[in-house]
């Protein structure tokens, strides 16, 4: 029982962090129907912004994170305007290449500025456990991350469902040409999508490196992006709540498989989780919560 709980809490903990980054990926996918490969690096950059504001400028941590979210959103607005908007949004290949290029550039620039020495990010949540039983520890970090993701998802859902910019966002993502015909300007709407996704990514990055077991360096996002993309695909790429479910399932499968299946070594935990995802996708090609494209003529 104790061991099971320990694995459960471990799975939840890593799952919640996969989920936040997956949410950022889903946002940009909903806006543009493409995977933004630079999303992880933007989140890394955002986590550095928060670190510098909090540690070097001495701004209180939560305020520093909010400022970093705004700062990264402004940066994303610029990237969208200069690098993305000149291209036809319906032609995906050039855009994918651009996000790949961004991935490399951001990573290199961050490395040049901040170096690759790990730094310790300030704690966002109290140290210690909410509840523990032997080796099974439910950490404040896990609970705090989960709570943040839930609040974030509720706010994003309200934003997309109840506001005018949310309606524009959904219209552009549903039918680009028709949204122009009703007067929705695609450029600013997609720019809003980039800003929103990047701000969420910054929050995700701060949450990720705020884990006392992790450290801040310019490479942290590279591994995580793959897990987050897997979580997003599992949940159904266009579903925000699916991203949460996908992240948690990925985390749980990872910790349970390694824990209970003897012949799978530790290092193969995530690989096993990804195999599980492939099996799910064979059965449900749109992911667990993804919307099927329905069209009757």
């Amino acid at each position, binding site marked *: 029982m104790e061991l099971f709980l320990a694995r459960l809490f471990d799975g939840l903990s890593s799952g919640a962090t996969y989920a936040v980054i997956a949410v950022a990926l889903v946002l940009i996918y909903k806006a543009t129907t493409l995977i933004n490969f630079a999303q992880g690096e933007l989140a890394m950059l955002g986590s550095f912004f928060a670190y510098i504001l909090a540690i070097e400028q001495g701004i209180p941590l939560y305020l520093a994170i909010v400022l970093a979210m705004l700062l990264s959103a402004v940066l994303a607005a610029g990237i969208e305007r200069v690098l993305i908007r000149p291209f036809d949004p319906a032609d995906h290949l050039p855009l994918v290449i651009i996000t790949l290029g961004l991935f490399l550039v951001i990573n290199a620039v961050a490395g040049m500025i901040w170096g690759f020495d790990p730094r310790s990010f300030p704690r966002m949540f109290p140290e210690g456990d909410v509840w523990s039983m032997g080796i099974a520890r439910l950490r404040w970090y896990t609970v705090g991350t989960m709570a943040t993701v839930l609040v974030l998802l509720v706010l994003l859902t309200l934003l997309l469902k109840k506001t005018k910019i949310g*309606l524009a966002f959904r219209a552009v993502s549903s039918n680009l*040409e028709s*949204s122009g*015909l*009703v007067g929705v300007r*695609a450029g600013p709407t997609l720019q809003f999508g980039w800003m929103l996704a990047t701000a969420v990514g910054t929050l995700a990055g701060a949450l990720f490196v705020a884990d006392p077991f992790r450290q801040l360096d310019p490479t942290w996002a590279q591994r995580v992006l793959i897990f987050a993309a897997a979580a997003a695909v599992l949940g159904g790429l266009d579903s925000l709540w699916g991203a949460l479910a996908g992240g948690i399932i990925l985390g749980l499968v990872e910790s349970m498989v390694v824990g209970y299946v003897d012949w799978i070594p530790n290092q193969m935990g995530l690989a096993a989780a990804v195999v599980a995802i492939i099996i799910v996708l064979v059965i449900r090609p749109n992911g667990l919560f993804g919307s099927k494209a*329905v069209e*009757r003529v």
Partner: protein
Amino acid sequence: MTDATTSPAGSPASTGKPILQVSDVHAAYGMVRVLHGIDLEVRDGEVVVVLGANGAGKTTTMRAICGLVDTTGSIRLDGKEIVGKKSADVARLGVAHVPQGRGTFADLSVEDNLQVGAFVRKDKEIRSDIDRWYEVFPVLGERRQQQAGTLSGGEQQMLAVARALMGRPRLLLLDEPSLGLAPMIVQNVFRNLQSIREEFGTTMLVVEQNANLALGIADRGYVIEAGRIVLSGTADELSSDDAVRAAYLGY
């Protein structure tokens, strides 16, 4: 506008002032030139139909008006030049376009489709307008929370028309509203268009292959062939024109 073939004064709606003036419009998709100098005019309160065979340039004409294709020449809306404007900006000037294939937001609900149709409006009557369309098309009211993509073709066409009219446009462009619909549904769609015109006095430019039905609700019409206007006149004149009868009416 220089159009020697336009009907003489005296046709029922020719007294309204021109809303749309298209003159010498050329358009191309890349290297393929489709329009070779289109001239046409729509006046306030009129329903004007554009007839023509497949590939004649009917849809391209509509797309040129909406800023969806590279265009040269002059297109004036209420006297204001709109060539070169983006489609969103043309829409904001009061042109609503129901594109071929209807262009519904398939994964948005019926209600959200209507909401987004009113995107550029700032007034407080959006809700009452939506409710009015639910009265006009009760089936849309019954399915307001359903994904638009799950509606039948005829229902989607009505939704597309209602969505376009939610913007309270100066001019409604309808591109082949009968396309892909069963004959009975087509009758129904045109009956609805007729009653919308009677009730709201909406100005419409309709592209249609079903010339019979289209001329039935139109005041005037143009015939387009290979990217040029070859004939124009009142609906009655076109209906009785031998060439039009042979080519488009089938009797």
